[in-house]
């Protein structure tokens, strides 16, 4: 069989074979997280930064013992930050945590009900982080004007939401995602809202460079199997995009020749 190799996903000068990026939250335990992440074949794995436990839980094995920096490109995120200041502090802590690692996922949220990005604070934080030498993959709304501004500032990747974080509602505004893809010269990844494999395939068919998801795998009945499904969906969607889909038609067009029919 002939293989049709794809170009790698390139973010901030680094190349990745996988276009599926995985979160590490909401799993039953580290073992399940590790198994699902392996099955997903993801190269980039995102995690959160939180206060250490003080007291009896100190010194227990941690996430990075399961998802090691030797095997994965770790992408610290600023989930839970509601101001530019907190997001910047979190990124600086993450850089220290990972020995100078500069790639971060910036998200500054607006409120706890929607977890919708606060674009004003996101723009502020992005500027500070870029000035401080970070490579910023930025979670944002699906507003193409904001996306363009973030790219012009120098963000390494634009990551519009498909729908609300953790909602599993898929891509609610594919037209906006498409607009962002068409105008962007840096990678565009749908981040948030993916619920099942067809959502991930849709993101890729729209021309996105990748997909970042967490809950769709972690909250599936069988996370390891869903990790496999997502890996396949991202590849399938990517191949369909590169292959170029047929035009949509208003009328039918038979697939079999009309000539030689027995009733002809």
């Amino acid at each position, binding site marked *: 069989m002939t293989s049709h190799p794809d170009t790698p996903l390139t973010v901030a000068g680094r190349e990745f074979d996988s276009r599926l990026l995985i*979160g*590490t*939250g*909401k*799993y039953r335990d580290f073992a399940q*997280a590790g198994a699902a992440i392996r099955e997903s074949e993801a190269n980039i794995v*995102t*995690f*959160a*930064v*939180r*206060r*250490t436990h*003080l007291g009896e839980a*100190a*010194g227990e094995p*941690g*996430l*990075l013992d399961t998802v090691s920096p030797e095997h994965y490109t*770790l992408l*610290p*995120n600023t*989930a*839970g930050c509601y101001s530019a200041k907190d997001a910047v*502090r979190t990124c*600086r*802590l*993450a*850089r*220290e*945590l990972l020995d100078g690692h500069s790639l971060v996922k910036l998200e500054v949220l607006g409120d706890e009900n929607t977890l919708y990005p606060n674009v004003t604070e996101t723009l502020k934080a992005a500027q500070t982080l870029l000035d401080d030498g970070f490579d910023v993959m930025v979670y944002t709304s699906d507003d193409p004007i904001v996306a363009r501004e973030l790219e012009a500032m120098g963000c390494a990747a634009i990551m519009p939401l498909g729908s609300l*974080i*953790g909602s599993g509602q898929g891509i609610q505004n594919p037209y906006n995602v498409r607009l962002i893809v068409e105008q962007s010269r840096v990678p565009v990844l749908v981040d948030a809202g993916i619920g099942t494999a067809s959502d991930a395939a849709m993101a890729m068919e729209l021309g996105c460079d990748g997909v*970042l*998801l*967490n*809950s769709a795998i*972690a909250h599936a009945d069988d996370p390891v199997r869903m990790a496999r499904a997502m890996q396949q969906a991202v590849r399938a969607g990517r191949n369909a995009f590169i292959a170029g889909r047929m035009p949509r038609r208003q009328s039918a067009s038979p697939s079999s020749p009309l000539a030689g029919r027995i009733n002809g």
Partner: protein
Amino acid sequence: MTAMTATTEAAIQLNGESRALAPDTSAADLVEQLGLGGQRIAVEINEEIVPRSRLAETPLADGDQVEIVHAIGGG
């Protein structure tokens, strides 16, 4: 970095909780006392990162706000 001069007990805020420290406790001492020595953590004092290589030479003073963080699961 200033030399350690504190000789009295210091009351700090550690991860949002009050904590009393013995005199002349360095940031590295605190990390050891918490059982976090050798762990992959990051330390911030008064909103400034203290690199791992400088923890031993960083004294903790009364009123310091100390944050010690690690990586956890998240998306």
